[in-house]
């Protein structure tokens, strides 16, 4: 429990009595810490909203931020820190918006000095600390969800399966292949094989920066799974260094066909399917 119902009532009274002056000073302090990256009007609106919901909470006898009466206040705080997190402010800059209230309150209480001022201030501080911690939590949660979203988007972006010929699909792999991505690639490739009825797949690893045993394992699994379904896989785009690494690590590709370039792989597949490729001599004029 941060403060008693009586104290929270006093806080609400203090906040509403000096409302105008308090929010102005509060906005000023926050504005200096944010160095003009948020418009004055926007900031003033946020501070006023926070101020209002604190008065409401105080009048309802708020004793602890996590209590039922704190619902409204928590919502306002959460919205504030979510906004800050999305706009790219740091955690400190977000928390300052709340902690600035302490300075303002101190100034105010020093002026109209009363006997119980110190005790009150400590109690108010307790509540403000709770509010600050709450903004921290919301801030981190927002950032985490942002990161998770981005990781998912990256996953979506980086694993296209393209059809390059009748009955031939290709997967150009770009970037490091970890277990999660390998799983997505595998599932998507196999699904495309079923959907398009393609009996041939080319896995192009030109864009994979390094091939270690784990990556090789993932690729091999994909090839074996495709074979079980009745499709053949060719691995292409093996760069010289990668070839050396593969040999040095003792990775065995067995009877899986490997080609240096996507073009070679495609030519091989076309030959297997019986399509004839011929070079036409261009007529010189």
């Amino acid at each position: 429990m941060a403060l008693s119902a009586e104290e929270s009532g006093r806080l609400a009274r203090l906040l509403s009595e000096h409302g105008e002056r308090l929010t102005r000073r509060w906005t000023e302090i926050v504005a200096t810490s944010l160095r003009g990256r948020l418009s004055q009007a926007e900031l003033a609106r946020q501070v006023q909203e926070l101020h209002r919901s604190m008065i409401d909470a105080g009048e309802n006898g708020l004793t602890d931020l996590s209590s039922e009466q704190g619902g409204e206040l928590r919502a306002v705080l959460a919205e504030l820190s979510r906004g800050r997190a999305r706009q790219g402010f740091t955690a400190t800059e977000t928390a300052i918006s709340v902690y600035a209230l302490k300075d303002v309150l101190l100034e105010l209480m020093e002026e109209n000095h009363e006997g119980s001022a110190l005790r009150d201030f400590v109690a108010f501080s307790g509540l403000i600390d709770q509010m600050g911690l709450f903004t921290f939590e919301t801030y981190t949660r927002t950032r985490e969800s942002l990161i998770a979203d981005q990781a998912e988007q990256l996953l979506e972006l980086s694993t296209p399966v393209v059809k390059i010929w009748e009955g031939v699909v290709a997967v150009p792999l770009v970037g490091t292949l970890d277990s999660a991505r390998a799983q997505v690639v595998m599932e998507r490739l196999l699904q495309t094989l079923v959907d398009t009825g393609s009996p041939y797949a080319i896995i192009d690893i030109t864009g994979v920066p390094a091939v270690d045993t784990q990556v090789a394992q993932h690729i091999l699994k994909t090839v074996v799974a495709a074979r079980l379904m009745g499709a053949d896989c060719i691995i292409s785009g093996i760069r010289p260094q990668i070839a050396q690494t593969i040999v040095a690590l003792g990775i065995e590709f067995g009877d899986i066909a490997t080609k240096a370039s996507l073009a070679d792989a495609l030519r091989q597949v076309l030959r297997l399917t019986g399509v004839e490729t011929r070079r036409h001599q261009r007529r010189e004029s």
Partner: protein
Amino acid sequence: MERVPILKIGDILLVSIQVDMSDQTAVQLQEDLAERIVATGCHGVIIDITALDIVDSFVGRMLSTIASISKVLDAETVVVGMRPAVAITLVELGLSLNGIRTALNVERGMELVAAARGDEWDEVDGDEDVETTATT
């Protein structure tokens, strides 16, 4: 007890497994299939497992056994329609269905059987195969 139906299409026997396989069903299927191969003189068996959500070591062994039986009776076995999820699970389990040919769908399976029976080249994709040897 449920029985798996065996359909005859031309020179091929088509087995579509739609039910969960039990010991009894599997044994019954093996018996039925062997009898039908002999009775009809078919040279190809296509086992369609599109409807199977789960292929465990038991079903895997059953497929292998059927393939071996068919082989003895001079018929090619092709397993078709394996789902991606099933394939992934089999790979993760380390089961590789040795000695079984696979194809994406029934149509490709029939082509595969035809290709394996060299004497039927002319009917299905003989021309293509001749060209392949010519270009290589």
